């Protein structure tokens, strides 16, 4: 037995506590989401009627299965409100991810081109905002974008506009907030792949007569695709379920699904519909989640 395999068994034992924790507090709760989404709304505390009680044996379970209610899911597909929310969320996430990619790529590329000693500093500067509160950063933008905020003051002073522009409660403000909040999540994976790239490949392309543009599109960009994929998923998945940013920056005429879920839960106190909304959202995100899981595993286990 080699000494490294001596290390393997105790290392496996280390998995027990986190395994149980994540099982109980991450996996099992999804079963409750499913269960509540199949139950009827009730005006009580908690505001749903329990579907079944395990203690009452097989007969009770059979009776409960017969009483399972798909009403909440029927509501989701029959009411435009929900379908439009899902579509809007997917669209907002797709557009935001595209903008993030277009903005984040040149920044990541610029970072990878810096002299080595400056790369660490630049990376630090990109990570720091990620540590600073989401909420505070969105609030900072409300300060700037409000009716008599700094942006309008500057625009008026420069005579670029003749009257204050409405920025808050618009889709532009929401996209700005999303791009602002998620930019570090796009830059870091892109930078990680670009920084690892062998400069000899580019030199070879130049030696073979490629123009800088050709070298970028035929060598650099294809090689950076894993980073593009990781960055895109890291942004797309959470943006689909985003609540805070659209709630504070976008108008209230069309809602993202995170807002709809929040409204059902906190305002309408309709837990079963909120659970059904969450279950469908999870289903929509399953494919990108699995893809992300594979990328993450490959990345962490290669190093």
């Amino acid at each position: 037995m080699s000494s490294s395999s001596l290390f393997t068994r105790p290392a496996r034992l280390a998995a027990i506590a986190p395994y149980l924790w994540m099982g109980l507090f991450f996996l099992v709760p999804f079963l409750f989401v499913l269960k509540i989404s199949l139950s009827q709304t009730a005006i009580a505390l908690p505001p749903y009627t329990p579907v079944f009680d395990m203690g009452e044996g097989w007969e009770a379970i059979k009776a409960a299965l017969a009483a399972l209610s798909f009403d909440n899911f029927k509501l989701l597909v029959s009411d435009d409100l929900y379908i439009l929310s899902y579509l809007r969320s997917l669209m907002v996430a797709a557009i935001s991810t595209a903008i993030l990619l277009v903005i984040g790529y040149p920044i990541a590329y610029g970072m990878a081109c810096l002299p080595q000693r400056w790369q660490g500093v630049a990376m630090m500067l990109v990570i720091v905002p990620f540590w600073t509160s989401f909420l505070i950063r969105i609030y900072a933008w409300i300060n700037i974008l409000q009716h008599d905020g700094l942006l309008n003051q500057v625009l008026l002073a420069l005579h670029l506009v003749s009257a204050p522009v409405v920025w808050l409660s618009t889709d532009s403000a929401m996209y700005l907030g999303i791009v602002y909040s998620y930019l570090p999540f796009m830059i870091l994976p892109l930078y990680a792949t670009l920084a690892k790239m062998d400069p000899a490949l580019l030199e070879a392309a130049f030696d073979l007569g490629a123009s800088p543009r050709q070298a970028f599109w035929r060598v650099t960009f294809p090689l950076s695709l894993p980073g593009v994929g990781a960055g895109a998923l890291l942004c797309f998945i959470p943006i689909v379920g985003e609540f805070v940013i659209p709630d504070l920056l976008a108008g209230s005429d069309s809602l993202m699904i995170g807002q709809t879920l929040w409204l059902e839960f906190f305002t309408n106190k309709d837990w079963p519909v909120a659970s059904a909304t969450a279950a469908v959202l999870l289903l929509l995100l399953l494919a990108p989640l699995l893809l992300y899981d594979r990328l993450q595993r490959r990345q962490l286990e290669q190093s």
Partner: protein
Amino acid sequence: MASATNRLSPFNITALALGLAFLYLPIVILIIYSFNASRLVTVWGGWSLQWYSEFFNDSAMIDAAWMSLRVAATSASLATLLGTLAAVALSRGGGFKGRTLFSGMLYAPLVMPEVITGLSLLLLFVALNAERGFWTVVIAHTTLTMCFVAVVVQARLGALDRSLEEAAMDLGCDPARAFLAVTLPLILPSVAAGWMLAFTLSLDDLVIASFTTGPGSATLPIRIYSEVRLGVKPEINAICTLVVALIAVVIVVASLASKISDARGKSAAPL
């Protein structure tokens, strides 16, 4: 790509500078306006500390801040313990049974929309008949942040030379001793960085805390959020500046820790 300094074109520098300005300017403006004497948030009325004193006299806000700090410290400590164990299992445990599910459960919360995590945890707490408040928020935040700790520590463990542990065991250490005497000191800075990341993430969270807390135990983000919905108030600028300052201290400590970590990693490599 590092050696190709000559490709640092004006375009690259502009992209980088604009990007960083975009990331930092709003926060800088927020901090400056927190010292504004004028009640009108947008008019500059000279320097003043009155919004800070208003915050320190606002007992509901202070209670929320205290609650947030306690939740963040407790959940970060739990998350660091569990996340480090998870990282050790993933990077040294080989291909054990259920490994795929284990790593999936650890990576999924990193991107899972918070409304889903929050709602599902709340339904669990209700089913367990747990009283909602401090501990339910601590459990919720631990569940989220231990995944970040696991990723940070796992990256460090992956970069570590395994021959060090093997050498310790060849010299007669049992695995536990080898871990405590060799591995742990080498990964300690990244464990510390993980704790601080968990702390700031917990301090920051609005959505999961809103779902899992009970009446009378609002966290700071919950209070800030309900104030912000009513409009911009100078007192909020002051609170946000204090939070940013606290996080800045944490970041400086964490970056020092990771510097030490890198230095140790390098000096350990030739062994």
